[in-house]
Each structure stands twice: as C-alpha cells, then as structure tokens.
C-alpha cells in the first residue's frame, strides 16, 4: 500500500512539474531559425540558390526547341509532354510550367531570406550575388509567363497579385543593375555570379524588351571588360574538355554525379554507346529544312548528325526523313546512366556580339560595326563574310535572326528570338500548327498556382 502511494506521488510530481519541458520539441537533424543569421548560414543559403538556378531538368531545356519548331520528338514517356508543346495544345496543367515556376521561385525564396538577414555593410558581395540570382530567376519567369507576382521579402503576403509588365521588367533591371555594381569581373569559383554575367543578362533583358540603346550600351560595356573572347573552333566549343572556356559567360553546369538527361532523351536506343551510358526511348530531331538552310561548308552544321550506323550494324539515313539528331552535346564517357555531365551554355560571348549587332541595326540600320560584329562570330564557321553593302535594315534584321538560328541551335534560344521578332505564332501556323494563337506567346500560369492564389489572374486566352 505504501509503495503504491509513493509511486502515485512520484508520478504526480513528475507529471505536473515538468509537463512543459517534456513536450518541448528538440531539433536533432534540422537547424533552427538562428542559422539564417549566421555567416555560414547565409553562404549556405546562397549555395542552395545557385544550385536551384542551374536548370538541369528537361522541363526547361526542350521547351524552346519544341515550341519554336527547332526540334520535334518521337517516343518515350516524355512524348506525352512534348506533343502538346509541338502542337500548341498545352494547357495550364502542363507539368513543365509548374516545374519551372516552383524551381525558380525557390531560388527567390532563398535570396529573400539572405537579403533580409544580411548586413549591407559587410555582406555587399553576398547581397550582389543574391540579387543576381533573383534577377535571372525573374528574367526566366518573365520570359515564359510575362508579368509576374513579385515576392521581394520572406515577410511578403502569401497571396501576391501580378504587377504590370513595366514593374516586372523594372524589378529585374534593378536587381541586375545593383548586382553589376558590386560583382567582381572574375570569381575564384567557376559558376559564381560575375559582373559580366549580370551585364549579359541585363543586355538580353533590354534586347528582348527592345530597349536598343540600353542594349547597345551594356553590350559595349561587356566587350570593354576584355574578359571574354570567342572560342576558335565552333565544333569543339561544346566539348566537356573545353568547359569553362572564355566564350562561356553563363552555363548550366553538370557533372555525371548531378547531370542532365539531354543526350539520353535525344538519341535512339540503338545508337552506339558505352555500357555506362543510358539512352531513353525518346528521340529529338531537327527538321530537314533547317539542316539544309546551312551553307554546305558551314562548320556549325558538322555537329548535326544526318546518318549513323546502329548497334546492329544497319546504316540509318536521317537527313531526308526530318530526323537528324542535334549532336552539339557529346556522349559523356563518364556518364552515370542517364545522367550526363555536359555543361549547357546559357549565354555565350557570341550572343553578346550578335545582340549588339541587332541593337545597332535597330538604332542606326546597317553599319560597319554591326557587320563586323556578325562577321566576328561567323568567320570561325564560314569563310564567306557578310558585306555592309548587301543589307538594308530589314534584310540585316533577317540575316541576324538566321545567324542566330545557325549559331544557337539546341541552346534554348529560338523561342525568345521568334517572340521578339514577332514570328513565334506565324512560324507555327506555317508549320501547320493551326492551334497556335496570339496568346501562345506567353505560357499559362501553372494551374496549381492559380488554384492556390486567389489573387492571381491567368494570362489572356488560357
């Protein structure tokens, strides 16, 4: 009897006195809120933002090519996602739209936490890198979706409305401008934000918004940095061994440990490959009329695979069947399954030069400088150079867009170029994509986002 009473008493004391501390939640494998205020925490958040800004998934990579008629696809589970992109039958549930949206806004989330906690006096470069990453994230989002809901701080209301086109562009411009003022020309770690990279995105922003003078000024500034130069041999420019060369201003870096599946989704399963290289059923092609648009001696065409002998020893003709393979990215000998280590360029110095040529042409019509800029890029691939006397403003504009298709194929460039040129829809109609309508120049806001945010309007037409 006594024993029971003691136990009862002991338990009562135990229960009443320590109740709150017993129910305290101790963290073991997660870090608490203070972490975001520490220098290590801020750097680590920035690393995460850099990582998420490397768009290695196919969501992003193939969308430009499939919608602009640069590529088409057959086979593979992925075909179900590519077909609506090719046919202009996509809707707001297409998984690529929510994929890119979610990914880029997670960069913005990390940046916003950094900007809230960083000390402007001591962390100037950290802040500049963070703003660069936020700037390019909003840049891509704007490229796909148009005007955006702007999340600028972790304390912002969950349910932001979309701001105007002007406000969206101004915000991107401001982030990138502020970044250019602080960022160094060189970074010790390859792939971190540099002044040149920030200027280049700014130049592209001005180009795509047709702010020609600003584009010309910024591209001029990039050239004056004397940090970048054209790689001499176009056919070797994309090789893994030449990654990090002086032409590459911003790339999506990959390594087999954390690679991309672009090669795996491009070639046929019977294409000769090593046992460590996986190829999916999906195949991505170039159309014959594009392959045939190159001058016969254009070195840039050499990277296009127009025929091959398959693993069963059978010769397969591709050109003539609209099934040439884009061979810009090699089969990484160290691939791990479908994970290949090819870096994919986002901005090359060639783009800066051609963009400047375009801006100058729009401002002044053809002149010696714009022709010279184009020839700088052209000469490594073709001996025949452009002559100033052959062009009017309009024909040079056309020539510039042609040069861009030859130079930047399979580099996610054509959709933006067509949108700027105003041919995105007309080209689709010309290809027989009757479903393509004016509103398709922008993609729809992901349906999940519309469902989750009552303040968000869908793009017109969707």
């Amino acid at each position, binding site marked *: 009897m006594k024993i*029971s009473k003691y*136990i*009862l008493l002991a*338990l*009562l004391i135990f229960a009443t006195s320590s109740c*709150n501390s017993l*129910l305290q*939640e*101790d*963290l*073991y494998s*997660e870090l608490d*809120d203070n*972490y975001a205020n520490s220098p290590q*925490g801020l750097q*680590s958040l*920035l*690393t*995460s*933002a*850099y*990582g*998420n800004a*490397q768009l290695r998934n196919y969501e992003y990579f193939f969308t430009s090519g499939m919608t602009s008629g640069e590529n088409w696809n057959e086979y*593979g*589970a992925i075909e*179900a996602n*590519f077909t609506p992109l090719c*046919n202009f*039958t996509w*809707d707001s*549930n297409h998984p690529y739209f929510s994929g890119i949206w979610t990914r880029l*806004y*997670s*960069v*913005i*989330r*990390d940046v916003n936490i950094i900007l809230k906690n960083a000390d402007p006096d001591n962390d100037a470069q950290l802040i500049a890198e963070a703003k660069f990453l936020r700037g390019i994230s909003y840049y891509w989002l704007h490229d796909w979706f148009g005007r955006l809901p702007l*999340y600028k701080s972790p304390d912002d209301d969950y349910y*932001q409305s979309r701001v105007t086109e002007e406000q969206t562009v101004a915000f991107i411009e401001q982030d990138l401008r502020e970044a250019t003022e602080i960022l160094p020309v060189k970074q010790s770690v*390859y*792939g*971190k934000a540099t002044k040149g990279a920030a200027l280049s995105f700014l130049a592209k922003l001005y180009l795509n918004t047709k702010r020609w003078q600003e584009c010309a000024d910024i591209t001029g500034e990039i050239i004056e940095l004397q940090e970048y130069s054209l790689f001499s041999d176009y056919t070797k420019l994309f090789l893994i061994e030449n990654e990090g060369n002086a032409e590459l201003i911003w790339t999506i*870096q990959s*390594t087999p*440990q954390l690679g991309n599946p672009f090669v795996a989704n491009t070639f046929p*399963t*019977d294409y000769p490959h090593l*046992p460590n290289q*996986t190829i999916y*059923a999906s195949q991505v092609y170039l159309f014959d009329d594009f392959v045939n648009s190159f001058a016969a001696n254009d070195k840039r065409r050499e990277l296009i695979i127009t025929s091959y002998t398959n693993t*069963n020893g059978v010769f397969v003709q591709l050109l003539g069947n609209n099934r040439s393979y884009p061979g810009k990215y090699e089969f990484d000998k160290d691939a791990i*399954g479908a994970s290949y280590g090819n870096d994919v360029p986002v901005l090359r110095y060639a783009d800066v030069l051609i963009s400047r040529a375009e801006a100058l042409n729009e401002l002044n019509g053809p002149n010696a400088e714009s022709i010279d800029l184009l020839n700088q890029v052209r000469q490594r691939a073709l001996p025949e150079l452009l002559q100033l006397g052959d062009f009017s403003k309009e024909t040079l504009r056309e020539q510039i867009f042609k040069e861009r298709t030859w130079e930047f194929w399979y580099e996610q460039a054509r959709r933006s170029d067509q949108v700027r040129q105003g041919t995105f829809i007309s080209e689709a109609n010309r290809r027989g994509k*009757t*479903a393509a309508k004016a509103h398709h120049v922008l993609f729809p806001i*992901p349906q999940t*986002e519309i*469902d989750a945010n009552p303040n*968000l309007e869908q793009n017109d037409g*969707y």
Partner: protein
Amino acid sequence: MKYIRVLRYSFLSAIVFFFFIVETYGQVSPTPIINATLTGSVIDGVSKDPLEGVTIQLDAVTHSVKTDRDGRFQFVTGQKLPFTLSISYIGYESKTVVVNTSPTIIELFPVSADIDEVIVVGYGVQKKRDVTGSVSSLKEADFNRGAAVTSVDQLLQGGAAGVNIQQSSSEPGGGVNVRIRGNNSINAGSSPLYVIDGLPIDNSTNLTSSSGEGGIANNLVAKNPINSINPSDIASIEVLKDASATAIYGSRAANGVILITTKRGTAGQKRLNYGVNVGVQSLANRIDILNTAEYIDVVNQLSVERGGDPVFDSEAIAAIGSGTDWQSAILQKAAVHDHNLSLSGGSESLSYFTSLNVTSQDGIVRNTGMDRYAGRVNLDGTFAAKGKFGINITTSRIIDNNAVDGNSINESAGPINAALLYDPTESIYNPDGSFTRSSFLTINNPLSLVHGIQNESSSNRTLGNVFFEYEIANGLKAKVNLGTDLFSQRRDIFNSRLTIRGAAQNGIANIATLEKQDILGEYTMNYNKEFSGGNTLDVLGGITYQNFQIKRFGGSIGNFPSDNLATNNLNLGDIATASLSSGKAENTLLSYLGRVNYTHNDKYILTGTLRADGSSRFGMDNKFGYFPSVAAGWLLSNESFIPQFFNNLKLRGSYGVTGNQDIGNYNSLQTFTTGGTFVSGNTLVVGTSPSRIGNRDLKWESTAQSNIGVDASFFQNRISLTADYFVKSTKDMLIELPLPAGTGYRSILSNIGSMRNSGIELYLSGDIIQKSKFRWTSSLNFTHIKNRVTDLGDARRIHTGSAANIGNVAIITEGEPAFSYYGYKVIGIFNDLDQIANSAQPSSRPGYPIFEDVDNDGRINSDDQQIIGDPYPDFTYGWRNEVAYGDFSLNFLFQGQYGGEVLNGNILESLYPSNYRRNMLRITVEDRWTVDNPDAKWPSATEPTSYGGGKSNTLALQDASYLRLKYIQLNYNLPLRSTKSVRGIQVFLSAQNLFTISNYVGYDPEANALGGSSARIDLNTYPLARVWSAGLNVSF
C-alpha cells in the same frame, strides 16, 4: 538454404510422428465392458481444454459426479453398458449422450453470447453486457486461416463490420491498408492505433526504397510493420470503433483502435502445443497480355497504320519462334512454412505462456520472400497478499527479401513492370548465357532484374511490458505499467551490372538503417464497487507518458571492381560516387485519462471518459487537447415488458471526440535543412534551405463521433445481431494547405476544413444447425460508409495521388468524397472526319478518344476535368462459416466489396506506351478502333500522345468490386481413445484466395501502389497468390 533444410526436417518428423499416432490409436479395438466402472473426461469442444466441475448424471439414478481438475470422472455402478449420461456445466450447453465404451471423451460447447463474457477495453476489461461502445471482438476461432496468414491484420480481414482491410501489396509480409469506419483524415494518418497487451505501439512504416535508393524503383508500399507479432500468439482482438470505446486513447484514437491480447497460461493446466502448416503458392490471376504471335501481329498492324512498314517480316518471325512468356519467367510456385511451438501452464502464484514461431514464405515473384523467427514469454503472478504482476516479452527477427518493383518506370522499374511490358519476341538468354537486352527498349530484361538486384532487410523488434497491480483497499486497485518497443532494421540493396542502372555505375550499393525506440510509463487507479440498490460503479483514472525516438542512417556508393561482394565491402567502391544521409527525431505524448462506468439494476449503463493529451508536435500554445466521450446503454432484455423471446437486447448510444496527431515532427517550427546542390566544375556543394513555413498555431485534428447501436440475441442465443449507425465529423483537419509556389513553399500544414464519414454496420451470427453431430455456425458482416469533404476553407481544391508518369489522379474538394478520381470522361471514339470537325478536338483523327467538353467551350483543356469516380466501396462484406460433422469441420470465409473504383496503371501503360515495342494488355488491343471496328471501346493506339485530355480518364478507371473466397479449411480431429499423453490432434487442408469474382483487369483489385495513402493507383502491383496448404496441430 541451411534453414530450409531444418524446416523440411522438422516437417518430415512431424509427419512421421503423425502417422505414428494414427498407427498407435488405430490398433486399439473397443472392448465393451459389462460391469461396474465407467471412466471418461469432459473437454471444451472448441479449445479441447478439460473442464473442471462438470456435473455428470447417470440416467435413472440420482447419483451424480463432478469432473476433477483434469476433466476426468469415474462411476462405479452395477448397471451395464450402454449408459445414458446427462452432462451440464455453467456457460456450456447441456448434453445427453449414450456411452458404449469406457473410457469416453465428451465434448461440451460454450453457450454462444455468454452473458458473463468479458472483453478487453482500453486500460482494462469489461463484461460484454456492460459495454456501451461499439466494439468488434474476435476470438481465436474467428480468425482467418491459411499458411500465408502471417500478420495480425490478415487474421481480421473480412471478419469485422466497419473494418476495411486491403492488402496494398501481396508480397510476403506486404503492406496493408486498414481503415476503421472510413478514411478520417487527409494529410494526417488514417490508420488505427494498435495496442498490444496494454502497450500502444508506433506502427509507422519501416524502411522502404521510397526514393529509389540503389537505383531501384521507388517503393511506397512498406512492409507491414506489425509482422513482428506472431499471429499464433494472439488470443483475441478487439476493434474499438465508436468514441465511447476509443476516446480513452484520445489523440491517437480517431482512426479506431485495435487491441491485441496475447495468450496466457492457466494455473494447473500444463499444455504443450505444436502446429505446422506447409503450403505452396502460385499466381492467382494472370494479367492477360499479348503472346508472342499476337504481339508480332499487333506491332506490324500498328506500324502499317502509322504509315510505316511492318516491323517483322516473315523471315524475322520464323527466327523468333515461340518467344518468351515473361510473366512465367519471373514467377514461380513458392513454398510457405509455418511452425509454432508453445508451452503454457503454472500455478496460482505464477503462470506462464511461452512460444516459438518460425515462418518462412517465399514469394511467387522470384527472389522475394520473408522469414520470421519469433519468441514470446508471458508471465502472470501474485505478490504479497493482494498484488498481481505480469510480464510480456516478445522478440522477433524478420529477414525480408524485398520485391524491387514500385512506383517507377523504364530502367528504374522492377521485374513485374518489365515482365508486363517487355518484348515477347526476345529470348531470355544470349547464346553465351548472359541476359539479352533489347536495343529498342530502355527496360531491363525482367529476369536480369530478378537476378541482378538484391534487396534484403533484417529487422529486430522487441516489445516488452511489465505491470504491477495492487489492491490498496477493497475494490481499489493501483497499477503501474512500464513498457518499451525497440526496433532496429538494416536494409542492404545491391544493384549489379546485370541491370541497366547497375551497369551504368559498375554496381550500386546502398545500406540503410533505422532505429526506433518507444518508452511507455503509465499509472492508473481503478475503483470498482457494488452499492446497495443495484448500483455498480467502476472508476478509472491515470497518467501516461510515452516517448518515441527515431534515428536513420543511409549510405550509397558505386563503381565496384566486382559484383561479387555486394554490400559487404563498401570500401571497394569509388568514394567520389558516395552519398550519405542521416536523421534523428523525437516526439512525446503526456496524457491524463479517466473513465466512469455506472450501472443501475443491470438495466441502465452510463459511461463517461476523458483524456487530456499533450503532444510535442503542436504549436507552443496548443500542446494539449481534450477528448471526452459519453455513452449510455439500456439492457431492455432485463425489463419485464420485453418478451422472453429476446435473450439479450441492448440499446447503445454514444458521443465523443477523438484526435489525430499523426503528422510527423517539427511542423510548427521554421527550420533549415538540405537545399539545392550547386555544381561547379566537377565539384558538388550542398546548400541549405528552409524546410517549411512553420505553423505556430498548429493544433489537434479532432473527430466527433456519434453512434447508436443495438445488440440483440434470440432463439436461446442462437441468433445474435449487432447493428450500428455512426456519424464521424472530422474538423480542424491537418491539411497541407497549398501555398502559391511563389512563396517558395508548396504548402503549409494547417488546421482547415472538415470531413464527414457516416455509415451503418451489421453483424449477424447464428448457430444455424445445432445437432450433436452436425453443426453449422455462420456470421455475416456488412458495412456501408459514405465519405464527404464538407469544408475545405482556403484550400479549395487539392490535387494529389500521383504515380510515375501518370500525374495527379485524385482531388480533394468540397462536397465530394476525399481522394475522388479527377480527370477526363471518355464518351466514345471518333469515327469520321465530320464528327471530328464538329467536336471540341478538331485536330483529332478517327480512332482517338472523345473527351467530354464539360464547359462546352469547344476545346478540351484542364477545365474539362471532372470527378470521375472514387475509391470507396458502396459496401463491404464478409461471410464466415463453420460446418462441423463429427470429427470433421469446414471453415470458410467469403469476403469482398461492391462498388469503388481503382485507377489502373497497367491500362495506362498499354494505352500510352512510351515505345511501340512495348507489350500491351490484350483487352485494350482486341477491341481497339480500326476502320473495320468502328464500335470499339478502346482507341486506335496509333498516336497515343496526340489524344489530348489526360491520363487520368475513365478508360483507365475500373470497377474494383470483387467477391473472394478468402480461405477454406477442412479440419479433421483425430478420435483419440486415451487422454494419457496426447490431448488432441487436428489435421487440416486449406486454401487461400481460391477464387475471386471480379471484372477488374489486374492482379488484385485491393492493390495500391501508393501504399498507405487513401488515394489509389494500381501500378506494378505484386501479384496475388493462391495458397494451398496442409497442416497439423498436436497438443499434449
């Protein structure tokens, strides 16, 4: 292998022993006695235990005797054989028998619906007649039978009203989905609480390869964590269903409670039991895919219809020959063995039950299976004058050879996926003996997966508790219960060069460990007193504390010089390919509980319970939740105005609130964890990012439940009926409220909205025939449950339930059943161009499916999705029978569901092949649209990615109704002529899953690739086995 030999040996010795017994007793010929002495014994006809104190009356004389402790009796009389004896015993049916021989054995059978029957309730026991809550109580005789019944849940399936148990995966030890009275939660758990001998256990899932560790499929169907309990140790299972019964478990009770009571020793009755059951399993239902010839034909036809040339010319066809039946190649006839040895007995001061179990079940998919070794010691004793104590310890080791299929496709999928899709024109082996690999498919040769991947787990689990109870004063008892549940598991995966992914990395090894620790401390006091005037009071109060800890570790590495060492020498891998992970978490529950039970005149019963639960998982100001219940019962049969026709008639009503805290840890806190990985050159740098938006206001999800019920029995208790109607309303649901992804977060766990489950349950049982030699008892249960989401607040619509390459198929939205299927309705197949031109799909071609244009806007887009079905059956049922004739008896159970749909991933793989060289289901091809088959059900299959709409559509949604003969078992009790050494021998033959009647196309309409989720998709399901087995029980 060594172990299997041991098993075989022990089985053979069992058989030899069995024949020896038969031989021995077969030789004894009956010798009629003329005179004087009659000896015999009386035993319980069900348990075969001897009955003490039974009255034996010899007809025509007044003399009677009683049986002794061992059930024996003896007469000395001058009469001659045969004698006529009248036998009677409290709680048993009286009997008159004519006896011709001596000694004789007389079996007595318990009176059904025994009025003094006691059932286990939360923190105690109650007389069944005093229970006001809704409880399904199953004794050993009610359990499902068969060699492949290896878990507690399988004992119950189909046997209790309101309890829906579905085997998500039929692999040995595979996961089950248990729902008591419907699906009560959306993002918090929906599985019941299990309490084993007073120890509430953490039944959360163990290690699965949920993120494709080792380069294998993501498997979301964890093995059933309760496999560690040996089903043969279980004496009874009580399923607590309404709030009156469950609210004493407060915050973990909203999904019902399953109380498991294990066997205990009886003083003075020393028993040794040995049981063996050996069976063979084979595929119950093959998926009908194209055979080689049909495949060649269809691939050629489709190629031509697509505008190409035939793929196979006559020369190629001749070279292929018969091809390969890949389903048969990966499947096998598989053995299952089950051995149980138990010893029980003891004295009044210390009694014991001990047992050993060995279960070995190979899977019907090659290279899968489960072995279990389990032991138990249960002790009960007394101390001092008024003290009692008990100790329960069970420990087990399970070796799982895990299946490697799951929610993945292509080269990451497992052998079942591959076998259904692989090109049947390929042979298994190359001439050099290596596995072939199709140059057209990025799928592994199915058999190379079987042989190329090892996935083995070993799990050790020890559950133990000890209690001391002391009667402080008359009727006042105090009890301390201390318990623990220790679990540790290690899983080794090795993906060798035989597979595509293994070859890409020169072998991938992954080792993961999981440790769980659960500590319980509990103190309760109980006061029970009968007052004058027919008032009885039973009061319970107590405090409990339970702490759960979990630790994980995992490591992967690749690039091995050889496959031979598998996971046993990770040092040989390439450190550049290595990755590590670990985690630790802890949560705590601190609770105060109380119950009052009051009865008046054995007619009116009132029960009230209250539990205050504190959980570490909730926001700082919301740690505690309060869960009350009240119930009343009226024993009408004790009222004089009720006709004697009713042996028992009770009305019950209850109302109460229970909670749910099954949400994972740290959801109220903002923390940081592993974020994005930055690649620079060949260097990877891992960053950190926020884990979630913490919700400081997070609180309990609560479920209010009302229940009214009636228990009735009539015809001398031969027929009894239990009927219940309930309404469960869950509010403040713990829902992942979708956030705009613009915030950088997908969702925030919030208390939002409400959901309602209502339903009726019927349980009818009867002794239909009750002759001395011929008996038939039967029970029928029926459950109808209706689920509705009544409010979703700001969440509006939640899309969920996605499987590999299919996307979300389920939706949660107001006014509809939670996890309804959401997608496109196919209303036909296009036949001609005019029809297409006037449709919402102008770019279609003949043979494409016609999707319903719900909003009539002339185009098909996401706005045309609608609710196309839901996974809930209209009703579920079970019909259990025991037919006994003499020494033979036959037990069988029919079980099934009517209504409810499943989205069938196999059909989607066939409708939307990633590659035209993949095999297809016969059903989608046989009746596909062609110019010559304009009234087809299925589309043309020529350009599936151009169909438009989406994969979640009515073509893939199938009725999951089924009726299954779950088991049938024929038993024979050997007539024993002596009780000297052997008490009883029973041999039996049984079959499980003998047949299933269903229109469902797939291995099993119960399957769910999403594991414990309430959303359902059938994809790459492990096939259901039909099991034939034979066995023997011997008791000494």
